[in-house]
């Protein structure tokens, strides 16, 4: 081909390139967030904002500051605590048999539209929660009765004593909803996309997949005095993009950053990496009911063969703390006297031969729901093989994994757990009561009638010291039975702009920000 049309074609290409360049240059894009607004970057949109439906902390980032509850978690010396204090409730009394709880509401509390928060609103919110029978209702006694004694007094009558009751009232599920919203004909659909609470902030817009904007509730009459006018939850799915936007000042807070990115952020003076011990624990389910791990010796061999230090330092890059028993440090009932599990390959080998060896490989099923699970699975496989226990790994989609966990189709699996309410009940009754076998919580399918008895007794007592004594017994016994292998409690980490002040992490409220206290 000998056509000579260079000039024309070149001109066209140049024009196209310059056009693009001009568009790109048409004004800088990066800008700092407005002074009166806190912008929080998260990987995913909330699913639903209905407090009677959502069980996802990612949704609570929006709902928790938009609603109030009877109780709330205390801040002690500027730190989050698992203790509770009144929020809407000014005071409360309990009957001697722990069955009747009577709450007096604070005066002058109002929903965002100015409607008064009264006993009827409390009654209707709980009745709706129980009638919906969705995930959040599970934390409350299904058969409790709620009465509005007068405008300021609400009474809960339980059929049997439930020691953690007061703590459950600080749950997201215990949010008090404006009765006007609950009476709408489209109440369920509406509440899934709007907020109708009396909390310090209210949702004003939700651009799906982009941002949720919350503004100060003009009628908020609680004890917090919000400083910032707005907070915005911005959806930035990719973690590198979140990190970059935080560094460029387009985000004030970036959540859910991988450990390696957080390490890199620590070198940036414009950013502060907040780290707090959390109550989110990672542990191994050992199938006590089926297969080779029915043998307690073999389960002990598993516990003895694990490289705990390697998992904490290598996989978690030190951002975790090894557990001793089921109740993590920071939760009352934690037993500091339990021996710290340590890798002891010789002891593990001895236990394997005592148990008569392992013929066919154990099946370790896991998913990549948590990025740490795959390296943990590989470590467990290497550790157990070294102790003479062959392991076969099987990676499944998370939904499929759960199905198998529920049916006990595994020898070993990996799980995370974080408490719904601040009570050791969450780490004991759920994990060890033989009534909760399967996904409900007892995922090792552990069964010990003696432990069942202690747990059920502890759940009815109001005397905390007696409960602590029972939980101590429980922990010693389940460690002796090697019901699970306890790995670590993870640190919660978030990247914050260096100018952001007042963030207090509460281990009960992961991914929830105390926006009403925060400023910049």
């Amino acid at each position: 081909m000998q056509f000579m049309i260079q000039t024309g074609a070149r001109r066209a290409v140049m024009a196209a390139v310059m056009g693009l360049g001009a568009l790109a240059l048409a004004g800088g894009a990066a800008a700092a967030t407005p002074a009166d607004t806190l912008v929080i970057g998260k990987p995913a949109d909330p699913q639903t904002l209905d407090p009677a439906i959502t069980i996802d902390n990612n949704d609570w980032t929006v709902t928790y500051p938009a609603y109030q509850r009877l109780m709330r978690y205390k801040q002690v010396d500027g730190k989050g605590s698992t203790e509770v204090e009144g929020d809407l409730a000014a005071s409360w009394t309990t009957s001697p048999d722990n069955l009747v709880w009577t709450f007096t509401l604070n005066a002058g509390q109002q929903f965002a539209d100015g409607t008064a928060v009264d006993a009827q609103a409390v009654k209707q919110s709980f009745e709706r929660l129980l009638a919906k029978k969705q995930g959040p209702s599970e934390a409350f006694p299904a058969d409790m009765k709620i009465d509005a004694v007068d405008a300021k007094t609400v009474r809960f009558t339980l059929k049997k004593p439930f020691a953690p009751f007061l703590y459950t009232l600080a749950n997201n599920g215990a949010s008090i909803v404006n009765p006007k919203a609950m009476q709408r004909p489209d109440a369920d659909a509406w509440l899934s996309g709007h907020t109708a609470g009396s909390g310090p902030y209210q949702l004003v817009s939700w651009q799906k997949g982009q941002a949720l904007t919350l503004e100060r509730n003009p009628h908020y009459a609680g004890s917090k005095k919000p400083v910032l006018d707005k907070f915005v939850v911005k959806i930035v799915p990719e973690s590198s993009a979140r990190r970059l936007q935080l560094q460029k000042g387009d985000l004030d807070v970036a959540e859910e950053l991988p450990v390696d990115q957080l390490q890199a952020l620590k070198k940036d003076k414009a950013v502060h990496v907040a780290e707090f011990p959390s109550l989110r624990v990672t542990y191994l389910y050992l199938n006590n009911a089926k297969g080779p791990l029915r043998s307690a010796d073999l389960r002990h061999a598993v516990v003895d063969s694990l490289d705990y230090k390697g998992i904490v330092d290598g996989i978690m890059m030190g951002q975790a703390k090894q557990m001793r028993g089921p109740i993590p440090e920071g939760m009352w009932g934690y037993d500091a006297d339990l021996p710290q599990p340590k890798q002891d390959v010789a002891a593990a080998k001895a236990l394997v031969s005592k148990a008569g060896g392992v013929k066919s490989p154990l099946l370790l099923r896991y998913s990549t729901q948590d990025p740490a699970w795959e390296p943990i699975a590989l470590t467990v496989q290497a550790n157990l093989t070294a102790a003479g226990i062959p392991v076969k790994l099987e990676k499944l989609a998370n939904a499929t994994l759960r199905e198998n966990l529920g049916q006990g189709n595994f020898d070993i699996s990996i799980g995370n757990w974080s408490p719904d309410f601040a009570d050791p009940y969450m780490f004991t009754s759920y994990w060890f009561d033989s009534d909760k076998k399967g996904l409900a919580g007892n995922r090792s399918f552990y069964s010990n009638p003696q432990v069942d008895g202690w747990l059920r007794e502890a759940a009815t007592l109001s005397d905390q010291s007696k409960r602590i004594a029972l939980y101590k017994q429980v922990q010693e016994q389940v460690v002796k039975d090697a019901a699970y292998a306890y790995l670590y409690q993870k640190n919660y980490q978030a990247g914050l702009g260096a100018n952001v002040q007042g963030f207090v992490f509460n281990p009960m409220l992961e991914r929830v920000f105390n926006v009403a206290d925060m400023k910049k």
Partner: protein
Amino acid sequence: MNGSWLPVVGRRLISLVWVVVGVSLITFIISHLVPGDPARLVAGDRATPEIVAHIRSQLGLDLPLPQQYLHYMGQLLHGDLGTSIRTHRPVLQDIAAFFPATLELALVALILATVLGIPLGVLSAVYRNRLTDHLARTLAVAGISTPAFWLGLGLIVIFYGNLGWLPGGGRIDQGMAPPPGVTGLYLIDAALAGDWPVWRSALQHMLLPAITLGFVHLGVVARQVRSSMLEQLNEDYVRTARAYGLSPWVVVLRHALPNALIPSVTVLGLALGDLLYGAVLTETVFGWPGMGAYVVDSIQALDFPAVMGFAVVVSFAYVVLNLLVDLLYRRLDPRIRGIG
């Protein structure tokens, strides 16, 4: 256009019914073959069996499968895609919120791929085996083989991170109100409203994701145009045109190019389908609020109504767009006007 397009449209619209039935049935079967219990996912792991059973019956998941499917199709006839298990909102409402963003991104990416791909293909053919051709072909191969994820992150690091010229993600500046929703396509809506600051912001946000998404198809288009252009340039009529003393420029652009473009129209039609389905990674990298993230989250939550809604809507859009492409094809190529 002559009168023969009407029956074509009629036939295509009838076939659309079968496409929707087929797609919904296959999606339904596949999504129910996946082991896992959506009711359990809604209720949470800790829920009691009673709560899970209650949710299962509420979602109609306790009915026999054929009955569930018929029920779904009955709703579909009334334009109801059901309610999302995950978000508890009507699926149609969710899709209406996310689809325009994906469509807008796909269209702009397609325009970029076309506007840059065609000249690239022409240059490549005209300067066959010379430097321009090698450069153009290298670019085309790079387009086809570069993972969108990598390219997207690279562009963000350079144009947002280092240069600060373009925003790092999203569809519009933080704090800016979106234009009044007429089409859901921000560039068009902002232009209709005469809101130029919003239009500019939407364009700036669009640029990097559209380049990322369009780059793959740019390569495909350029290669397609190059090969059909080469074919045309060897045809007798080109030689005749040249013999008449027409300028090379006129021969290439007025005579050879229109013929070379006909197969490219098909490629572009297919590309648009690909762009609709394939925007997931690009959307994730750029935080583009399209269907990608919605569908991935829905699949993970075993949200059957949402997944089926996506499949039905996209296949519907795909068929309609292909119909438009075919009509365009008939317009461009007189030879097939008489063929149904």
